[in-house]
């Protein structure tokens, strides 16, 4: 079955003529129809778009002129990425009917690379959450245990790859929203360096942290897609003009002689012992492959979470001010003046967590509190970034758990602070703007995936992926599939 294959394997089938893009598209659409009612990864399925794009890819292969390694492969996008003419909800009532007038740069690049769009994926509203339970529409299920969350906020993206409902998907990571769901669903989730991928057309949550990245079945697939989506963009001045290497070629070479740091502060009281055991075993595997491992210290780790939950909401409160019922999105009728219209529209259109963060951010930025909260958080952000700079003087990459625990039960974490703690190991990297990948590193006795995180220097995704690839080749966790029938 074609739907079991990753991007690279599928592309090889297209090139040797043993399969065609439209066959793959039909396979995936049939699988989505059969299984998505259980998994609920998709917000919108786009069969017409998929079949039309696949037919065009068929013709290119038939003519012997495919566009590149991604031509004809079926993908899906988190519903935070704007797609021209295709509804983009951001998981929110306030954008329930929003049809973007343009494509995000990432979307355009994927289209130009020949990919086939299967649809848009569920997420926590405005990417705020760790479980998809904050989606205004429904909760996505973890394919490994349908009673558990897939993680979030890009939960639909992770679940779709785990259930073979797309060959690869795309999500966004602000404080862990790619890496945490990838860990919970047992796939590869890459957050590139801040500035590596254009944010144009990505609906903003926290602009100094948001970054687009892929969910894939293998590390090699992540390397292939990163090359396609990365690079400078005239539409986003923060997308840096740093050369984009051939990440796929850079995977070769292994980890022999590479210096890998293990951060002392990422093994904390209260973490799941099965996660700790799996990550320590993964370090042994890397050592066995010739890496030089050493303990490093990132002393401000425990402050990252508090700093993040001030900076993120502060930026969100400003970014989400645009939802005022005027230019697009929901408007509640019957208001006497514009302030009442805006206030009632926003109260009706935003969910609980989004309101909470807007309130928190507005408070942290308001007169009298600005320096004590927001200012202090920005200074702590500097300390967190310095920790990494210090560590990277002696090591080439850092290896750690992605999350302190595995996928939790739907409805289990009701207290917002408990939910926030999920991101404790992914947030520091985000604050420092560094690249990180989560990849499968084992399973608990109950059969739930465990994620290993590899963190690198700014713009050094090549080393991050190389370490991940070496580990993946030495293990077979990535080959396991959930049973869904």
């Amino acid at each position, binding site marked *: 079955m074609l739907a079991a294959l990753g991007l690279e394997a599928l592309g090889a089938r297209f090139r040797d003529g043993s399969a065609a893009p439209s066959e793959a598209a039909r396979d995936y659409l049939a699988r989505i129809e059969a299984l998505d009612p259980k998994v609920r990864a998709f917000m919108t399925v786009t069969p017409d778009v998929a079949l039309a794009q696949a037919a065009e890819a068929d013709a290119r292969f038939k003519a012997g002129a495919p566009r590149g390694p991604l031509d004809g492969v079926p993908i899906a996008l988190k519903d935070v990425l704007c797609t021209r003419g295709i509804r983009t909800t951001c998981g929110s009532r306030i954008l329930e009917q929003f*049809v973007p007038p*343009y494509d995000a740069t990432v979307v355009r690049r994927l289209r130009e690379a020949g990919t086939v769009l299967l649809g848009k994926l569920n997420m926590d509203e405005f990417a705020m959450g760790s479980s998809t339970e904050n989606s205004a529409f429904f909760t996505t299920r973890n394919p490994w245990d349908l009673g558990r969350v897939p993680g979030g906020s890009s939960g639909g993206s992770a679940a779709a790859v785990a259930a073979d409902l797309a060959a690869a998907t795309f999500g966004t990571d602000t404080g862990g929203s790619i890496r945490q769901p990838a860990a919970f669903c047992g796939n590869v989730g890459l957050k590139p360096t801040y500035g590596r991928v254009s944010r144009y057309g990505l609906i903003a949550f926290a602009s100094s942290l948001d970054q687009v990245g892929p969910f894939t079945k293998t590390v090699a697939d992540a390397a292939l897609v990163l090359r396609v989506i990365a690079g400078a963009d005239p539409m986003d001045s923060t997308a840096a003009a740093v050369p984009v290497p051939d990440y796929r070629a850079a995977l070769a070479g292994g980890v022999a002689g590479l210096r890998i740091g293990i951060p002392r502060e990422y093994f904390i009281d209260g973490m799941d012992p099965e996660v700790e055991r799996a990550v320590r075993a993964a370090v042994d595997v890397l050592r066995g492959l010739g890496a030089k491992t050493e303990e490093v210290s990132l002393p401000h780790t425990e402050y990252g979470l*508090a700093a993040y939950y001030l900076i993120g909401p502060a930026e969100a409160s400003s970014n989400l001010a645009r939802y005022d019922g005027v230019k697009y999105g929901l408007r509640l009728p019957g208001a*006497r003046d514009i302030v009442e219209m805006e206030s*009632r529209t926003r109260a009706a259109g935003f969910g609980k967590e989004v309101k909470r963060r807007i*309130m*928190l951010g507005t408070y942290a930025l308001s007169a009298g509190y600005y320096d004590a909260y927001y200012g202090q958080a920005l200074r702590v952000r500097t300390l967190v970034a310095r920790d990494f700079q210090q560590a990277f003087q002696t090591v080439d990459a850092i290896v750690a758990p992605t999350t302190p625990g595995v996928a939790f039960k739907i409805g289990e974490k009701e207290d917002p602070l408990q939910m926030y703690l999920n991101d404790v190991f992914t947030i520091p990297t985000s604050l420092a703007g560094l690249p990180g990948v989560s990849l499968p590193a084992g399973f608990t006795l109950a059969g739930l995936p465990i994620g290993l995180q590899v963190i690198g220097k*700014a713009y050094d995704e090549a080393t991050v992926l190389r370490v991940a690839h070496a580990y993946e080749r030495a293990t077979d966790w990535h080959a396991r599939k959930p049973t869904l029938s």
Partner: protein
Amino acid sequence: MAAPRISPEDVRHVARLARLALSDDELERMRAEMSAILDYMDKLRSLDTKGVEPTSHSIPLRNVMREDEPAPSSALDDMLANAPDRDGDTFRVPRIIEE
């Protein structure tokens, strides 16, 4: 237990700034949750950050300049297509200025 750090008046004020019409129940729940979250944030105050520069962006960025060349902008109809209420080529909103 310490006295609640955010008063009902504080929450009401912030909700007004944020343009959120919250019910009394919502305001009270928000007050309790924000207080608990801000208690947790207090751990930041224990850090001495004197002399530490704030980081508002993780990567050093200078102004990115380009040539100022005129180019077509987005089509008017595309931009108005999502408007909840429009009047010809303009967005229509409820009254802003009192008569």
